[in-house]
């Protein structure tokens, strides 16, 4: 059915949009998806411990249908980036993200994953996972307590509830582009920068030549 709906040759008429058929389908579709968001078993740092605590019996994510932590990205819907993202780790995170099937969501848990956190100034720290991977919900805190994480998961469910099968990108005809994986060189290099990277390098050399330290 969804295939039919996403067929661009048969667009839903303006007057029918938002009508009963679509909205109830959306409702069922969103309800089933938000009630079974399976996160990936993917712990980075301190926040991972709070994530495990959230999954444990006191806070019990199973109440939201989220207890099925999958070790493989192929079976996961949600990547909880729980901790400091380092330059050495980001290529692997991007690869894992690319391996996850659509629909997929990313939750940046804690200050570090959101924007670098207290370790932002460090030479090996990426200031926010959203520099490379699209993030749906940010949970501030260092670390967010289990209840705060639950709150952000509820926010994610709300976000899923607001989606419509007509608009979501994963039923479009054109394939979804993978995110190019960053590479480790003398520093972290973002492939998306490569076209103008040489220019930047040149500018840097000129600047260094201009102001010798």
């Amino acid at each position: 059915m969804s295939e039919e709906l996403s067929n661009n040759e048969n667009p839903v008429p303006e007057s029918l949009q938002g009508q009963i058929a679509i909205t109830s389908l959306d409702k069922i579709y969103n309800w089933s998806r938000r009630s079974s968001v399976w996160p990936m078993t993917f712990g980075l740092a301190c926040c991972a411990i709070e994530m495990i605590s959230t999954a444990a019996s006191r806070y019990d994510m199973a109440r939201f249908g989220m207890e099925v932590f999958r070790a493989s990205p192929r079976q996961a819907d949600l990547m909880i980036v729980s901790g400091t993202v380092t330059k050495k780790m980001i290529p692997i995170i991007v690869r894992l993200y690319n391996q996850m099937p659509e629909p997929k969501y990313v939750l940046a848990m804690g200050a570090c994953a959101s924007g670098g956190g207290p370790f932002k100034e460090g030479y090996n720290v990426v200031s926010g996972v959203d520099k490379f991977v699209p993030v749906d919900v940010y949970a501030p805190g260092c670390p967010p307590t289990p209840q705060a994480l639950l709150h952000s998961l509820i926010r994610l469910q709300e976000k899923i509830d607001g989606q419509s099968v007509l608009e979501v990108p994963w039923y479009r005809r054109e394939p979804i582009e993978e995110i190019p994986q960053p590479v480790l060189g003398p520093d972290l290099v973002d492939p998306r920068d490569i076209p103008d990277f040489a220019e930047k390098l040149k500018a840097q050399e000129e600047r260094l030549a201009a102001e010798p330290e």
Partner: protein
Amino acid sequence: MTEEESPQVEEATREPDDMEQQFPGVLTLDERKGYGGYLVPPDKLVEFATQLRDELGYDYLSSVTGVDYLPEEKMEVVYHAYRTQGGPAFVFKAQVPRGDPVVPSLVGVWLGADFQEREAWDLLGIRFTGHPNLRRILMWEGFEGHPLRKDWREAYYEEDAKPFENRFPEGGVYRIEDKISFGKNVKYPSEFSPEGWIPEGDEGLYAGVGQISTDGNGGTLKTDQLVVNLGPQHPSTHGVFRMVVTLDGETVIDLQPVMGYLHRNHEQIGERNTYIMNMPYTDRLDYISSMSNNFGYALTVEKLMGIKPPERTEYIRVIMAELTRIVNHLWSIGFLLNDLGAFQTPALYAINERELVLDVFEAVSGSRMMCNYFRFGGLARDLPPGTLQTIRELIFERLPRRIDELDLYLTDNEIVRARCIGVGVLPPEKAVAFSAAGPVLRASGVPYDVRRADPYGIYDRFDFEVAVRYGGDVYDRYLVRLQEIRESIRIVQQAVEDIPEGEIQTGKALYQVRVPAGEAYGRVENPKGELGFYVVSNGKPNPWRYHIRAPSFINLTALAEMCKGHKVADIVAILGSIDIILGEVDR
């Protein structure tokens, strides 16, 4: 490091002391003010270290680290050696010119120097000749520069020391990455071309993994050998840890740990911070036992400042440190069982008890995990009313029962025994040589516990036993942890009974403490093992050098040794029994 060794002598001519007489021409007392230990010429280092280990009985190398003395144009390598019978450290140092820092490696004397020397090479660029595998350990191969050198600058460099000028008064909020969009401070080498550049792979890493030849003559014919990567994203590596394993069928031939995936530059940030700012950062080292980390750092800086906390504070510190040990061991036992395949249930039972202790931490310090509770010469605040009662309920009633239950639940379980007994054996002499610490060392039959061997705080007042087992396998490590929980409960029980009323802070709590110039090495028995802080002060508000001797990092040195000859599935169990925390391994 002891006070007696620190140079007090003012006059130029000085009688050589006992050690100098014993090693004429080799040892010279370090006479800088506030410093201790001896200087050893680099060319005599290996010979002296061998003598120190064999003749004087300093068999345990605790810490190896480098210091970049930029103004003096020197690099210094600092070694702290101990006797496993107990007693203070023997500190010796080798100084080399900063331009070409080359020091002979001590891996041949103490195997535990392996990773620490690699770290010093990676972060400070000190080359250790004779090191079997001197590659970068925390950063990747091909990374430009050695970041802990004082003249190295990172991409978002703002200033050398905190507080940063631009936060106040002119203010104006910004995100630093917007301001410096393309790392102004990242210096790419001039020959670097993004198009023609091939990223360095893991060839060096794979070449370092031992492979056996099967033609019997030491030739290079390789058959049926497989290199497998476990991690960095693997559910059983306790975080972002990677192991490169060579397998013959299912048997492990060799293993190389790869780390640095969580290297968040703790030491560099620590050298930029003021002393008090480092306290919350220490929480994030071994994030399961933040109170113990606080303890170690507070002790070290107090040693430098020469102050002592009041009596009540000492008691609260011990209570908190021991509760942390209980929490940590519960967690580690739970997840060891997870690694063995007993999915979730034991871990969930253990986490339940942990949650109750965390409630105490939250009430006391304000945060479940990142306690930031200790201050120099005191604590952040006194215990809130009612907390002591909750602690009593926990340690007199609930926890002893629950630990017995856990014991009944797991210890005699045939599957646990089959999976654990005889797996990952580390003989005592190897454990000492590898500088293993904590439960890993004590499960191998070495009753070495800093709380007993070199007591700090008020640990000499409590009646407790050092848990020790003699098998050196995964099962014994599990039993040592269980026993340690019981001993910790005993200590807290005594402490709660004896805790006096009174002040909690020596002097006034200041946000800018005055730390006289000098060096200090403070160590505590963390749940994971011996946690050491090496702090060098030059009298300014920020430490000149701030190094952490991380127990889980150094315990990993022995991982390959423990895994060889076992099956793949056992690696996970062995790793679980070492109980690593990546925040501390990578720092």
